[in-house]
């Protein structure tokens, strides 16, 4: 009896809500696209009441519907909206577009947001080509996240005692032109792009006209703190004429200085307009005498694993397949711009990026231009990484390399259950 009454109440409520909505819709008629009953929208890897850093990546998952860019009509299709610290908007009108209602009109399925410290609400709402939610609306639960005080003190990576960074061909008190190539050297530590965790590795930061930042947190990123997150070893610096200070500071995968910090002396340089001939002599020598130059690579080039993906379980004998974006493959020894050949690094750290990749069992060269390789590994956890290298086996600048992924080799793999 009770259940019936509850059902009745619910029915009446939905009727009321329905009539309220329809009366609203009469004022501003907006056609709502239908959505399937099983459509589901949710956050990926973000739980209710999670503690998160102030800068976080939010990923969206939708099932039962398709993600298409705004403006593209389609059955059971739409694009994501992220509602931050706000209630649901009216469901029969286009979702507003402001700081609290973020649109992902290109069909994005993730975003990076910055939130001030404190408690915030997040909710996902799917909408059709006109930004109007579907009927019934496809939305996630409203979750809350707690942003801890930033910048957070972070664990510092250890650096080898002998590690150092220094300027190449640039002394304290040197005179340089307004547009100068500054080159960095490292010793006793490996150059690893940001985001890739590695023992005794890091990437350069050039501090211009500024004191050392706090060493127990992320190095700021602005005009005074220039990041070289892709492992670059030189930059073209534009400075106004006058006195300036330069200092190098190595940061780990999270941009946090090492312990002890690996940094250069803070040097003073005098910048003069390049037109005056008297300064030519003291200008840093031209690029000609740099050791074994690295081949440039386009900035948007990327190498990635087609198979397997990070965390996957694979058979002891598996074919590893490589993908390459915005560059081409050429066998070793072939000199051609924007090409290179693959190297598969198995169970080894990222090798130094300014010399030829070693050739051994852990560093597999695909010098014939191969784009896949069958390997056999003992059971257990293994790491794999791809690095593209030029005709001389030296990684490009910036290096074109994949994340170091982890795979589990199992002798028996459970076949995913067939869908009936």
């Amino acid at each position: 009896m009770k259940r019936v009454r509850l059902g009745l109440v619910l029915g009446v409520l939905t009727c009321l809500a329905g009539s309220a909505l329809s009366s609203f819709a009469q004022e501003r008629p907006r056609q709502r696209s239908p959505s399937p009953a099983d459509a589901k929208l949710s956050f990926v890897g973000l739980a209710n009441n999670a503690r998160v850093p102030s800068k976080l990546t939010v990923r969206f998952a939708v099932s039962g519907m398709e993600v298409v860019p705004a403006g593209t009509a389609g059955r059971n299709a739409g694009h994501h909206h992220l509602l931050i610290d706000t209630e649901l908007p009216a469901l029969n009108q286009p979702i507003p577009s402001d700081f609290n209602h973020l649109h992902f009109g290109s069909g994005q399925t993730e975003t990076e947001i910055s939130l001030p410290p404190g408690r915030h609400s997040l909710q996902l709402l799917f909408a059709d080509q006109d930004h109007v939610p579907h009927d019934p609306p496809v939305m996630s639960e409203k979750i809350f996240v707690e942003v801890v005080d930033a910048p957070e003190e972070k664990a510092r990576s250890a650096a080898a005692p002998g590690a150092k960074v220094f300027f190449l061909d640039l002394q304290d008190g040197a005179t340089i032109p307004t547009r100068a190539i500054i080159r960095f050297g490292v010793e006793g530590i490996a150059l690893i792009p940001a985001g890739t965790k590695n023992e005794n590795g890091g990437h350069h930061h050039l501090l211009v006209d500024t004191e050392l930042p706090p060493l127990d947190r992320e190095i700021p990123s602005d005009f005074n703190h220039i990041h070289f997150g892709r492992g670059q070893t030189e930059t073209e610096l534009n400075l106004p004429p006058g006195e300036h200070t330069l200092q190098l500071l190595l940061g780990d995968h999270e941009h946090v200085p090492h312990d002890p910090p690996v940094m250069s002396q803070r040097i003073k340089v005098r910048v003069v307009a390049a037109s005056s001939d008297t300064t030519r002599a003291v200008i840093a020598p031209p690029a000609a005498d740099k050791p074994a130059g690295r081949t440039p690579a386009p900035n948007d080039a990327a190498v990635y694993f087609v198979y397997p993906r990070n965390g996957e379980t694979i058979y002891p004998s598996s074919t590893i397949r490589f993908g390459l974006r915005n560059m081409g493959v050429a066998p070793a020894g072939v000199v051609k711009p924007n090409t290179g050949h693959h190297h598969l690094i198995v169970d080894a750290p990222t090798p130094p990026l300014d010399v030829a990749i070693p050739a051994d069992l852990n560093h597999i060269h695909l010098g014939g231009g191969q784009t896949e390789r069958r390997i056999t590994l003992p059971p257990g956890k293994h790491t794999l990484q791809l690095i593209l290298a030029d005709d001389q086996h030296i990684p490009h600048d910036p290096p074109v390399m994949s994340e170091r992924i982890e795979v589990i080799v199992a002798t028996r793999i459970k076949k995913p259950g067939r869908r009936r």
Partner: protein
Amino acid sequence: MRKPLALAATWLAALLLAMPAVAQAPPRKPSPRGAQVYFHYPLDGLRVPERFTVRMGLKEMGVAPAGIERPLTGHHHLLIDVDAPPSDQPIPSDYNHIHLGNGQTEVVVTLPKGPHTLQLLLGDSTHTPHNPPVISKKITVYVR
């Protein structure tokens, strides 16, 4: 019972087709046993957006840019909405035959709505298919 017969028939047809090509062939580069070119993406029968990336895989051989002569290498060609060209001549270069001459292993294509066929064909340094030709299955995708 039917399947093996059909298979044998296609093999025979393939052989017959290949024979004359071999007979009048100028020097064609040999391809190794088991060499195979295939699609990572898209797969046969898939519905795809108008603009999508075609990714290709190559078994038992390597990729080299056009003009580079190395044994057991070649470069990819993407055939769109056409039948495979004769395998004893250089692959034509037009909108239906996309050359990936810099050794690319993926390409972004934009196609009008509707069904389209895609096929991969490896060419040697002179854009000529190998002997036997390294060619993928012809797949159909539906652009929505």
